[in-house]
């Protein structure tokens, strides 16, 4: 299995029937593919609807139905369109159970950086700051390390923050890590990796959970 698939599969296990969930661009979007059939999760699209459905077949695109990444998607029966103020009232007002976002960096305090690299990449925060502050549970879904192998789970974020102390759970292809008041708690390690492997790939201190488990994928 590719790392992205492992991550998406594991994130899918965090979702419960009835949850209202926003899936960010990239790996988070893949999570929708691994939800149990008929599990009634309400996917929210921050450009203005709830009930985000699958990508339409070629030739069946509706010009007015895109997701927040600009791709053509569909809306499920029973969904609802609304304006941007309502969309972010849902996000900010605590009506979103879970947001799943990618990250450039995340740290021991649950700080998140995922919106810019000064001097290099300034795409803008889009909805990420509101999602991170507003969602009841913030899950970071990302590959454990950067392409050059450097750590992304740090003692302290070096890039400009998206939000302060808002991350609850970090899910990578190597591990599941919970952000707690005491610091980062290693809860699960993926098959084929040891605790030491995860520690070596991580800059932040990791507290090994007394209930450490193998990561289910």
């Amino acid at each position: 299995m590719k790392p992205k698939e492992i991550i998406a599969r594991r994130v899918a296990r965090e979702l419960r029937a009835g949850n209202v969930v926003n899936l960010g661009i990239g790996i988070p979007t893949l999570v929708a593919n691994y939800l149990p059939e008929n599990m009634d999760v309400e996917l929210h699209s921050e450009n203005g609807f709830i009930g985000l459905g699958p990508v339409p077949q070629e030739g069946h695109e509706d010009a007015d139905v895109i997701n927040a990444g600009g791709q053509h998607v569909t809306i499920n029966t029973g969904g609802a369109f609304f304006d941007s103020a309502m969309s972010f009232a849902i996000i900010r007002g605590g009506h979103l159970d879970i947001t799943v976002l990618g990250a450039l960096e995340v740290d021991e305090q649950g700080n998140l950086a995922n919106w810019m690299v000064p001097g290099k990449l300034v795409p803008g925060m889009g909805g990420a700051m509101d999602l991170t502050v507003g969602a009841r549970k913030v899950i970071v879904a990302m590959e454990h390390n950067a392409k050059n192998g450097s750590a992304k789970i740090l003692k302290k974020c070096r890039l400009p923050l998206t939000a302060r102390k808002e991350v609850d759970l970090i899910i990578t292809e190597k591990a599941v890590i919970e952000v707690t008041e005491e610091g980062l708690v290693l809860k699960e390690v993926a098959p084929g990796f040891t605790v030491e492997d995860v520690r070596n790939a991580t800059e932040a201190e990791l507290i090994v959970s007394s209930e450490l488990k193998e990561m289910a994928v």
Partner: protein
Amino acid sequence: MGKLTTIDWVLNRVHDETVLMIGGFLGVGTPDSLIDGIVKKGVKNLTIIANDTCYPGMGIGKLVVNKQVKKLIVSHIGTNSETGRQMTAGEIEVELAPQGTLAERIRAGGAGLGGVLTPTGLGTVVAEGKKTIIANGKEFLLELPLRAQVALIKAYKADTRGNLLFRSSSRNFNPLMAAAADYVVAEVEHFVPEGDISPNEVMTPGIFVDNIILQEVYDNAVEVGKGGA
């Protein structure tokens, strides 16, 4: 009432230095005919308040490529490399706002509020230069209202009174902007007589809309969707 008019009439209100709001999210819900008109007119140094700058050759992206923009207030520019290039080169000023904050600032501008308190952006560069206010024991950023001289919005249908219906995810910022500018123009796909839209269905009341223009025929559905793929 006579709200239906021509693009040329609307362009009489768009000059060098005009502050514009333009609806849309990555091109969906953007008034393309009006943008083409502005490109043709060639006015410069526009300030544009919008969610994003779409893609280089599309929607609001056309105005950026054509170097007609002095300042942007947007939540995202990552889909338009030319915006990033102009920003890095110092040719364009970009104020980035969290998308939900942008929505509330525009809404506040239309609703006569002096600002809103939001937790979004606390502890980030977004908080720089802004007032922090403690309310009910919690910390919030004070975000100020946004208004424009002209709002160019896109709706699906208008009646002669200017009552609007939006369609699907093309609604986005359009209803908010309709309330937040001195002069508001809706580009629509369908124009119907008063009475064809029931009072219960109306999404934006006609009192907000000064003029209506009929959208020229576009069929960029597939391209828009692929631009973001």
